């Protein structure tokens, strides 16, 4: 009984901190219709800043808290709103998501440059205080967290329901143009909500530091828990969001208390937020086929068969010449770039043509890699088996997740990625107890690897373009533009989506197999959840609608770690720039390569 009480209190405290974070997320979403994937990253950076002030510079805790939550975080929220999010008002979900990912990756870059990795203990608040309830001890920090959660809940409720500003905020969501006719200023209200939202992210982050430690990625991805809570409230209802957050905190706490502590159950506990995210999504009503407001997208011109053939020939020729010129280290790196290029081709199919934003595409690369590594000696056949396993996993996830669409679907893919991460890729099931596997190479020499990767990239690229020109390509795009019209023309929209998802997963799985045998040693650390986010970012920056975009993106993805090991500070700056570029480029999914094409056609004209 005592234990139950203690775990209940602990669960409520964690849940309270989640509630603070999730409340901020719901506030910004419901007033600006931009779902901020970078919400947790804001909390992370602000928690680091708090450490800097309170621990490193020795400011009193209360002053540091006030400065960070009351001044820095709101200012940062204003900047993000003014320079990134306001320009995205009314943009499709995919675009706002990518902008959020840009903010996220950029902030992680900033944090890594300003605060290089080291242990950073943070003192809890009021650590000399604390009360005994029965036999369980509630620390001062716990009390502060609970009080904050109650204050935030009450404060948000009062602001939204009892003030003119709150009424105007709620009006702006539904019809900003209409609300502005009545004298409110949507831009100012959106700015206000971003300021408050960032402050709440900061407060939640700081409250959680004694529990989760200061870390760039863990804290950033902790918001998946906040997403889950926010989804309980359908991204609208604050009371439900708070209830969801408290429920999550309790479930996690009870899981620690009452689930067995074997390795499987330990990874299972970590997967609970993702599992619950799925449960919440599945409990949502099937999203109706959207009617009205169709807007086409301008893709790059699709090359015909002849142009494709000439392009492929040229590409292979250039690679062959490079293979003769460069040493084996560079050849290996180029091969890696092409393998990443194949991963990005899978996103051209899914995101560029199909319009589905996946935040979990790298997971399929992991599935392919593990399959090939487990099968032992790689052959073209094992590579295909890897692709096949990824395709099956992709189809399964599609069948579950495709009930929902748009933002919810993207979040479901992220939840799926976290689930796979905790239960499979980071557990001994995938890479064994040592966390790594040896894979013999299909061809030994680096030059051979380069040619293998180039050949596969060419084949997959030709395949993707053939799909685009053919029946499936037309159907994918038709489903993206108007699923309602597709259905009334006799197309089974659901199966087309499952098919595309599965095909795209197969391509990613194939790339995973190539990656495994190229690297010779693959480890759990190669397939961390976080890797999914730069992947989407590079895909969009380079151009997610074309094969040449995938090629450029692959090269950039290969260069990033090279930069990071050679010039860490510069790499941090590069990541920040990437984040900014993504936020800016998000409106043009044709990406950097389209500029090249435009320059080319201008020169010829």
């Amino acid at each position, binding site marked *: 009984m005592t234990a139950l009480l203690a775990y209940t209190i602990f669960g409520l405290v964690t849940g309270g901190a989640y509630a603070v974070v999730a409340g901020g997320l719901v506030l910004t979403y419901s007033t600006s219709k931009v779902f901020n994937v970078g919400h947790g990253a804001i909390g992370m950076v602000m928690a680091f800043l708090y450490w800097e002030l309170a621990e490193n510079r020795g400011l009193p805790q209360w002053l540091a808290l006030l400065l960070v939550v009351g001044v820095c975080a709101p200012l940062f929220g204003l900047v993000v709103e003014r320079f990134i999010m306001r320009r995205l008002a009314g943009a499709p979900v995919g675009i706002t998501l990518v902008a959020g990912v840009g903010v996220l990756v950029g902030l992680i870059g900033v944090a890594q440059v300003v605060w290089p990795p080291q242990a950073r203990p943070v003192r809890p608040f009021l650590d000399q205080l604390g009360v005994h309830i029965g036999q369980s001890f509630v620390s001062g920090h716990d009390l502060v967290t609970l009080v904050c959660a109650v204050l935030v809940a009450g404060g948000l409720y009062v602001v939204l329901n009892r003030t003119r500003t709150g009424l105007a905020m709620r009006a702006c969501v539904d019809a900003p143009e209409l609300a502005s006719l009545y004298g409110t200023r949507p831009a100012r209200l959106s700015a206000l909500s971003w300021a408050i939202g960032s402050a709440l992210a900061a407060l939640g982050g700081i409250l959680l530091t004694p529990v989760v430690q200061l870390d760039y990625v863990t804290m950033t991805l902790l918001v998946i828990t906040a997403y889950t809570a926010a989804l309980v409230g359908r991204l609208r209802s604050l009371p439900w969001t708070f209830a969801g957050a408290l429920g999550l905190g309790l479930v996690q706490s009870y899981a620690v208390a009452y689930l067995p502590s074997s390795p499987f159950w330990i990874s299972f506990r970590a997967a609970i937020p993702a599992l619950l995210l799925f449960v919440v999504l599945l409990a949502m009503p099937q999203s109706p086929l959207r*009617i009205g407001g169709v807007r086409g997208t301008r893709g790059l011109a699709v090359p015909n068969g002849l142009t494709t053939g000439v392009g492929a020939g040229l590409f292979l020729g250039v690679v062959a010449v490079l293979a003769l010129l460069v040493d084996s280290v560079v050849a290996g790196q180029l091969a890696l770039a092409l393998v990443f290029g194949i991963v990005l081709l899978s996103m051209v199919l899914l995101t560029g043509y199909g319009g589905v934003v996946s935040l979990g595409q790298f997971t399929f690369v992991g599935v392919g890699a593990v399959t090939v590594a487990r099968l032992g000696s790689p052959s073209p056949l094992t590579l295909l088996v890897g692709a096949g396993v990824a395709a099956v996993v992709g189809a399964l996830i599609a069948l579950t997740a495709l009930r929902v669409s748009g933002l919810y679907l993207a979040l479901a893919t992220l939840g799926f990625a976290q689930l796979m991460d905790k239960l499979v890729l980071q557990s001994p099931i995938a890479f064994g107890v040592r966390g790594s596997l040896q894979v013999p190479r299909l061809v030994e020499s680096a030059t051979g690897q380069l040619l293998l990767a180039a050949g596969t990239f060419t084949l997959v690229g030709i395949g993707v373009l053939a799909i685009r020109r053919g029946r499936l390509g037309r159907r994918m795009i*038709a489903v993206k533009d108007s699923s309602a019209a597709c*259905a009334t*023309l006799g197309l089974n929209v659901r199966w087309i989506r499952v098919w595309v998802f599965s095909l795209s997963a197969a391509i990613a799985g194939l790339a995973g197999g190539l990656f495994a045998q190229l690297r010779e040693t693959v480890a759990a650390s190669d397939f961390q959840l976080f890797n999914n986010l730069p992947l989407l970012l590079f895909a969009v920056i380079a151009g997610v609608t074309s094969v040449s975009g995938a090629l450029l993106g692959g090269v950039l993805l290969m260069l990033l770690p090279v930069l990071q090991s050679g010039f860490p500070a510069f790499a941090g700056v590069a990541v920040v720039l990437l984040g900014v570029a993504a936020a800016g480029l998000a409106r043009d999914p044709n990406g950097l390569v389209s500029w090249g094409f435009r320059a080319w056609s201008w020169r010829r004209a």
Partner: protein
Amino acid sequence: MSTLRVEGVTVRFGEVTAVDDVTLTVEPGVTGLIGPNGAGKTTLFDVISGLRKPTAGRVVLDDLDITAKGPHQRSRLGVARTFQRLEVFGSLTVWENVVVALESRRRSVKLADELLGRVGIADFAGNQADTVPTGAARLLELARALATDPSLLLLDEPSSGLDRAETDAFGELLRQLSAEGRSVVLVEHDMDLVMGYCDRVHVLNLGRLLVSGTPDAVRAHEGVREAYLG
């Protein structure tokens, strides 16, 4: 040649009843479905084409209850429609739009040019669909619906965006479609078109069926005038 029966269909959105216990029959030929804005015409089309589940009631096509069937299944039974708010595939060309529909029903792609010519937009074949004028986009939706070779064709305000000459040509096309044995339902605000080409007219007002009858009978009906003039 299809007969459609809508039996006691009700659609509620929360507190609002958009369609209130409507029962009507669509016989072969051209049937008009008219009423002031908000009468529930488009909602009824959504129910018939399967995009929206009714709160109550049944939809019966040639004695087959299709209420539980999805939109793509209904399409295969011969139901096709166009949309009041355009639903063209904007990223594809006009020609590709029609091809998607032809392929869906395993019909020859070669028919696309013929269909575009038939509705009078052959000149736009190579244009991206969201760049063509509204009138042409509406005709594209018609060509795309015809590509599925429907026996029941639901047209939601097809003539808005067309000029007088185009509207007359469209009226002739309606006659041909009817002569081919297709049942056509027309939601339309152009009363000349409705009165000139429909064999039968149903009038909806505030979600309820006000009157059904020949164009002349409907024109003479006292309640119809009141409904329109408020």
